[in-house]
């Protein structure tokens, strides 16, 4: 269980320090600062063990969040909690920055008291928290006794994430499928590893206590239906469906139903939340193909040519494309020529950065660069780090499709048809690299 939680600024000064258990001493704060924040070598592992004390940290811009424990805890749980903590703080006061934390430290301590009890994570649903931890203070919004008891029954009840009696004039639902595609490709164009990790984000503004049902082209479900012979021919459905390797759900989803029928049904929280997270590795649509060509001309010159090809429907537009071509450490000068977009040698990052604002599908574009090198007495060869790429495309590279999202509310008089639903797909690059 978590013994304590510290928040540091970039200099290693402690902004927030909350100790939950006695086994965490005062020196734990310093131990983390000395051994991780001020470490000589950059510490890359998110878990550090110092003197039998484990430190789990995440970094948000210049802020370090560290959870400390002396026990053998579930590290995944701790990180899940830290991420949740970040979400909660963002929901309360926006960006996590030193200034924001300093301005809201009372609130943060209040939150920490609420979402961690003796080191055990408690209800950390922003919607629920906001009903009883407010920034306005008690005076601004006097709560009646009934309201208070309502909060208590809701928070401790079966459906802790949604309160009763919500009413909207317009029942609306926003559904975003956010995916990030990760790739490592050999210079010859062979896929070495590729996977998509995706999230289904929802924003719901629904009255009452609606029951929702979410359907997508999950292979298992489609196959089952295909067998039943109710839908169209299996060949077609096989192509359309995707194989999900693993997934996790928001706590509102009824897992028993998912396990038995593989249907995702839930009573949604109010406002924004992450319905599910998943990962796929098969039949990924790779939006871009990078073809590198590196030629070493003698010891002091390097010629690089990179072609990128977009590989999706011509009607779609990819955005924010950025190709990062690493340069050797002894680069002394670079000349770049590109047909499209802008390219620049960034010495501070040891890379040529090529930016294209928009690019339609089934197009290609190329860049060529001449790199001058300074002869060094270092015998080591340049390691040739991979060329990496960033982009954003308006479809889901995993092939995931939302088939339906049904809303049932028996008590109130609105039906599935009255709800306005919006669906959006965004595919982003994760670590999208091609070796050269």
């Amino acid at each position, binding site marked *: 269980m978590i013994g304590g939680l510290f928040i540091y600024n*970039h200099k290693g000064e402690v902004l927030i320090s909350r100790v939950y258990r006695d086994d965490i001493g005062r020196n734990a704060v310093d131990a983390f600062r000395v051994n991780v924040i001020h470490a*000589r070598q*950059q510490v890359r592992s998110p878990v550090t063990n110092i003197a039998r004390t484990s430190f789990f940290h995440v970094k948000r811009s*210049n802020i370090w969040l560290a959870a400390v424990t002396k026990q053998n805890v579930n590290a995944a749980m701790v990180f899940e909690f830290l991420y949740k903590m970040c979400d909660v703080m963002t929901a309360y006061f926006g960006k996590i920055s030193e200034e924001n934390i300093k301005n809201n430290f009372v609130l943060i301590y209040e939150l920490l008291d609420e979402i961690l009890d003796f080191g055990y994570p408690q209800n950390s649903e922003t919607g629920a928290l906001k009903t009883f931890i407010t920034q306005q203070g008690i005076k601004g919004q006097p709560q009646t006794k009934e309201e208070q008891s309502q909060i208590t029954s809701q928070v401790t009840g079966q459906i802790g994430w949604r309160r009763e009696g919500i009413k909207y004039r317009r029942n609306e639902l926003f559904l975003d499928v956010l995916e990030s595609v990760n790739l490592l490709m050999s210079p010859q164009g062979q896929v070495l590893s590729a996977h998509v990790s995706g999230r289904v984000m929802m924003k719901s503004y629904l009255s009452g206590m609606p029951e929702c049902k979410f359907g997508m082209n999950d292979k298992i479900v489609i196959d089952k239906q295909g067998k039943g012979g109710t839908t169209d021919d299996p060949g077609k459905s096989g192509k359309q469906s995707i194989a999900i390797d693993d997934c996790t759900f928001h706590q509102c989803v009824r897992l028993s139903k998912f396990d038995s029928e593989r249907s995702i049904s839930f009573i949604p929280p109010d406002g924004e939340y992450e319905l599910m997270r998943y990962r796929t590795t098969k039949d990924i649509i790779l939006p871009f193909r990078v073809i590198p060509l590196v030629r070493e001309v003698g010891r002091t010159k390097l010629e690089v040519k990179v072609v990128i090809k977009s590989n999706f429907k011509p009607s779609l537009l990819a955005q924010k494309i950025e190709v990062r071509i690493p340069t050797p*450490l*002894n*680069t*002394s*000068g670079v000349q770049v020529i590109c047909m499209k977009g802008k390219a620049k040698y960034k*010495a*501070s*990052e*040891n890379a040529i950065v090529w930016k294209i604002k928009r690019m339609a599908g089934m197009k290609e574009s190329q860049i060529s660069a001449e790199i*001058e090198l*300074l*002869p*060094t*007495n*270092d015998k080591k060869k340049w390691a040739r780090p991979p060329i990496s790429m960033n982009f954003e495309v308006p479809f889901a590279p995993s092939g995931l499709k939302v088939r339906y999202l049904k809303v049932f509310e028996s008590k109130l008089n609105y039906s599935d048809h009255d709800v306005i639903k919006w669906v959006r797909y965004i595919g982003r690059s994760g670590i999208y690299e091609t070796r050269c």
Partner: protein
Amino acid sequence: MPAVSKGDGMRGLAVFISDIRNCKSKEAEIKRINKELANIRSKFKGDKALDGYSKKKYVCKLLFIFLLGHDIDFGHMEAVNLLSSNKYTEKQIGYLFISVLVNSNSELIRLINNAIKNDLSSRNPTFMCLALHCIANVGSREMAEAFAGEIPRILVAGDTMDSVKQSAALCLLRLYKTSPDLVLMGEWTSRVVHLLNDQHMGVVTAAISLITCLSQKNPDEFKTCVSLAVSRLSRIVSSASTDLQDYTYYFVPAPWLSCKLLRLLQCYPPPEDGAVKGRLVECLETILNKAQEPPKSKKVQHSNAKNAILFEAISLIIHYDSEPNLLVRACNQLGQFLQHRETNLRYLALESMCTLASSEFSHEAVKTHIETVINALKTERDVSVRQRAADLLYAMCDRSNAKQIVAEMLSYLETADYSIREEMVLKVAILAEKYAVDYSWYVDTILNLIRIAGDYVSEEVWYRVIQIVINRDDVQGYAAKTVFEALQAPACHENMVKVGGYILGEFGNLIAGDPRSSPLVQFNLLHSKFHLCSVPTRALLLSAYIKFINLFPETKSTIQEVLRSDSQIRNSDVELQQRAVEYLKLSSIASTDVLATVLEEMPPFPERESSILAKLKKKKGPGAVSVNELEEGKREGGELNGGGERGGDSSAIASTPSPSADLLGLRTGPPVTAAAPSTGSLLVDVFSEAGVNDDGFLSTQVSKIYNTVLVVFGYFNKKILHIVPLNDLSERELVTINEQTPQGVFVMAPFLKMFRALTCTILLGLGMALLENVDPNPENFVCAGVIQTKAQQVGSLLRLEPNAQAQMYRLTVRSSKDTVSKRLCELLAEQF
């Protein structure tokens, strides 16, 4: 220094450094550095040549980046170019970069060496100094090879400036330390020694460091330096404080030089020349006298400098160890320091006294301070000083004050720091042993020691007390009584239980007469500690129990009950389980005289150097235990352990620190040594005797044990009669295997030579294992195995001795049951 022309402080560098300092995060810093590196690369690559200033600036930046912890793989060439500049600052930065960054890179080293050579031969003293400093800083082998011949010439040349001479001396010292084989003084020796007469004190100071180092390696060549050093010293000591001007430090004339001179003299024995010696003694007396004078200044620097000389002089006096008068004076002087306000002084005084205590002249004088030292031990705040006090007490201990000192150390132990407890324990143990007049005192002391600091009592200490108790008949009864009493404490340390278990197991009979310590009471007392102990201790206690059965037959049923209980006989620890089972069977099957033989009292231990002393030596490193003490240890140790005529039987108690060092030695552990068969490897004895015995019969004594052993084996093999392929095992390994995985052993023998192969088949067909290289006669067959009958398993040994000439063979079968032996014999006779 040449005038600095342009940009005294390089502005670009200052801006860069302040940029780095202002970076908010590590990432930002790395970005800034990458940018700067790219800039420098493009500048170095650029077509137009850089002027000296910008070269210097960029090299400086690279140096700064390197010192921040980033790799630098270029810029070396530019740095080397800077060396040939005529400006001091540029040259300096060049040398700085090289001494920090250049490793033995062949192509560059040549260029650098050239530049250094040029500077060394230049007439400019600052350039020469820079070059010498660079050589000293790099100090690589290549540099030594290139310049080892050149530097001594510079050092002794008449026209070299004093500052260059200083640098040269120190540079040479450095090269000598890294590669002594390359620095050959030879012809220069006498001229270097004569640097001691140099006018310039700085040169003398630098030279004396060099000479000290050189004379440690080959004292004979530099012998002449003694008289020079003495005269130099006497000149300094007798000078008025104002004589030396620059070299007077807070009214003390040339303190560093004096210290170094005194240290140099410590490399040599006392001078033989009477005049020189007289002069030196005079100097030392003057120094001691000066210590008595009232201080000329209240500043701490003044007293520090004065005391530094004083302590150096005292260590010289101790080193000579020939002037009783001086030694006593030194001792008195140190005695004053013992109560000084300065902690450092007290520490140093105690440390020096430790060495003084080992000198025969001053030992008595040191002893007069015993009260102060004991007081220091008790009241001192600084732990390191307390440690020194303890060391001194240890050093000043002799027969007359041993009891007092041991008592003080024991009482101190209760509050001592954890870090020094183990050492203290060892020291107490050694002193108690060394100066023990009566052994009851010794036993008391050690038991007290275990009681007070049980955790820090290493195995050697309690092994030693057991060795001594076993070797001394007169103390055994007392020891038994004392441990019995000590064990009655509600909580006693495990080491105490170990000692108690061992001693009661051996000598419990000596106190059994007293109804308060009747056998049963003894047993119950031991057994009450049993469950709180670790496995090795429990194993030891089990052995003690079986010894009890031998000593007091009346406890047999109680003990058997204990051994039979599930917690013993089904213990999850194999060692304990096996002991319990073996001992249970041994006690129920073997007759009393077998028991008495197997469980005989341990024989006395052979004489050897105390293992504790060895441990202390190891702990403190060589040299910490003075020679004097070692001699004394020998003298006293011999007396204590009651002569060396006993022994011959080496048991594992002290030599093997393994937890299986055992009372009984019947089973356990690796066989001790091949040369000396010990009780620890009883089985080896059996086998070797059986092998040597030509008539094939075992002597009665051996056979008795042998029977027992086999019985024991027989009972452990729950699912036997699979035979172990033991053929390629040597005799001793075989025994080990038997012990670890109880398997049956069966020795069997003889037959006709030509049918050797056939015989093998027959014997193996019997389900026995053929043991090779067991019998001294290679023609003989020796087999071992376990016969499994319905009722029980019977271990058998078998030997077949073929006689080719006589066309006969002899078969010897030995097993625990005579009927089995007979039947086996008949069976085999049919086969052959």
